[in-house]
């Protein structure tokens, strides 16, 4: 608490000269800071000037003094006089307040981006990073510039931004995947590696679905913290809402809460979430129900029953799809039957979803609907193949008739020739 007070009061004193948000329009197009610092080229004192040219703040007209203070109109070293409000490079704990001067002000931010949230600092205070920094004085944790690199901040929509969905995991991993850096915190450092194997990253990186989750979608961004055991389902339910709702109403939700199991992650893992397949269901190899249940107990029987139902529908679907494909390849029109098979697809997906209710009846209801559709489709497939055989037989008979006609004509012509 003492540290927090000291940091808070120190920051207020330092930022005293920068209490009000800067006015971009009032800044000089060419500042004296740039004139001098650009002479350093690639050296540390020149690098910020080069990088800042592509920064979103520069694009909005903000100059160096907006964050560093001082007098940009003064061409001499006195431009960096603390009396002129110069604060130099802010300390890590000061960065949050410095950014918050503008970003926490709805009145100010709406002039530049009315849709941008203004609760980042408030959220940061609730995050593990914020609590470590502001309450325990740990300056190794991420602050604003840890994720939004100072002098080259870009909006998340920019593919080069450190917080573009495709780059977030790399940004978080720059600390969290470094065992040496993370050693004092005694937390795992394999999250990035595991996430890289997950279906979420595959969806995002290979299939270009930027709505697939990355670190901040489950942990929060400015308020980043691990999801609590009790609310993992709510986090996953942001996208997987039907499964989350079924699971929330199920007996398992209450039992998992009692046992301290992290909801969805108990069966699906957290960072290395794979593509969920039927193999997860049941008691066999790769099935997750077997972690708690075994053959003979009621849960195990339900698991086996649900798996058997889904396997049955899957097998019937494959059979119907296969016979229709065979008929289609043979040139028979089966679009009506294939159209009907779409209902079985819906039923199969719904049955797999219904598994999250852990109710055999719910799964059976979907499977029955699917089996009715596959049965009709299969019968139509058989009918189509039957028609194909009739057509082949017809072709054989026609060919035989034509050959007989040719033979008859040949004999008739020869007879006429003999008579003449």
């Amino acid at each position: 608490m003492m540290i927090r007070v000291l940091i808070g009061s120190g920051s207020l004193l330092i930022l005293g000269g920068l209490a009000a948000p800067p006015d971009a329009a009032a800044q000089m197009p060419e500042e004296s800071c740039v004139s001098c610092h650009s002479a350093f080229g690639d050296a540390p004192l020149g690098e910020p000037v080069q990088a800042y040219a592509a920064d979103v703040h520069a694009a909005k007209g903000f100059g160096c003094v907006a964050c560093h203070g001082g007098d940009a109109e003064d061409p001499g070293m006195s431009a960096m006089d603390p009396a002129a409000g110069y604060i130099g490079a802010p300390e890590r704990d000061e960065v949050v307040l410095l950014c918050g001067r503008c970003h926490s002000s709805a009145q100010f931010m709406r002039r530049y981006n009315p849709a941008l949230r203004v609760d980042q600092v408030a959220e940061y205070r609730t995050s593990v990073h914020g609590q470590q920094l502001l309450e325990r004085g740990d300056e190794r944790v991420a602050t604003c510039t840890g994720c939004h690199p100072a002098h080259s901040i870009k909006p998340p929509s920019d593919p080069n931004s450190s917080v573009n969905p495709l780059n977030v995991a790399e940004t978080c991993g720059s600390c969290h995947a470094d065992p040496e850096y993370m050693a004092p915190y005694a937390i795992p450092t394999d999250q990035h590696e595991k996430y890289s194997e997950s279906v979420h990253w595959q969806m995002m990186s290979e299939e270009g679905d930027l709505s697939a989750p990355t670190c901040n979608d489950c942990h929060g961004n400015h308020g980043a913290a691990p999801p609590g055991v009790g609310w993992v389902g709510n986090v996953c339910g942001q996208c997987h809402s039907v499964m989350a709702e079924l699971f929330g109403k199920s007996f398992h939700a209450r039992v998992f809460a009692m046992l301290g199991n992290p909801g969805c992650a108990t069966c699906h893992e957290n960072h290395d979430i794979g593509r969920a397949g039927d193999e997860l269901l049941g008691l066999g190899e790769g099935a997750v129900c077997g972690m708690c249940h075994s053959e003979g107990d009621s849960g195990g029987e339900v698991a086996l029953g649900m798996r058997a139902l889904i396997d049955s529908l899957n097998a019937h679907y494959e059979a119907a799809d296969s016979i229709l494909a065979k008929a289609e390849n043979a040139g028979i029109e089966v679009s009506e039957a294939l159209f009907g098979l779409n209902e079985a697809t819906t039923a199969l997906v719904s049955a797999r979803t219904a598994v999250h209710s852990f109710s055999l009846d719910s799964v059976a209801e979907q499977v029955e609907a699917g089996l009715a559709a596959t049965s009709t489709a299969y019968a139509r497939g058989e009918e189509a193949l039957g028609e194909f055989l009739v057509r082949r037989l017809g072709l054989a008979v026609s060919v035989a008739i034509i050959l007989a006609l040719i033979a008859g004509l040949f004999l008739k012509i020869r007879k006429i020739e003999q008579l003449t």
Partner: protein
Amino acid sequence: MERDAVSERAAGPRQSRRGFVNWLLGTSVGGLLLAVLYPVTRYLIPPETAESTAATVTLSIRPEDVAPNSAQIFRFGNQPGILVRTPAGELRAFSASCTHLSCIVQYRDDLGRLWCACHNGHFDLNGRVVQGPPPSPLETFVVNVRGDQIVVSRDA
């Protein structure tokens, strides 16, 4: 006498062979006519359901059968399509296969959206994803009303 008997014996089988050849020719021509007439007849009698091409389909739904703020599923080749009449009265058509896992979407008149019940995916009446896991919009079809007929086509 003996010569006559020999020529009759010789004429008998010849007569029988000639008859056979004539029969063969007659039945072959008959068969050929059947082989031609059968497909012609089958062609003239239309099938129970119209076969749609990959690019366009004429629906069996009449424009007045689709009330505002409602929709009907139709067959587009072997895939389901959905014809929606918006609350404003405009007819729009989309692929009814959800872009997530291919469940058939339905119209929610309480929301004015297309909805996939499997994983709660929502699409607006332009086919765009507005909620849930679908990764991409629904394919949009072009709707033309020609008198009493609705013709749905893939956009060129």
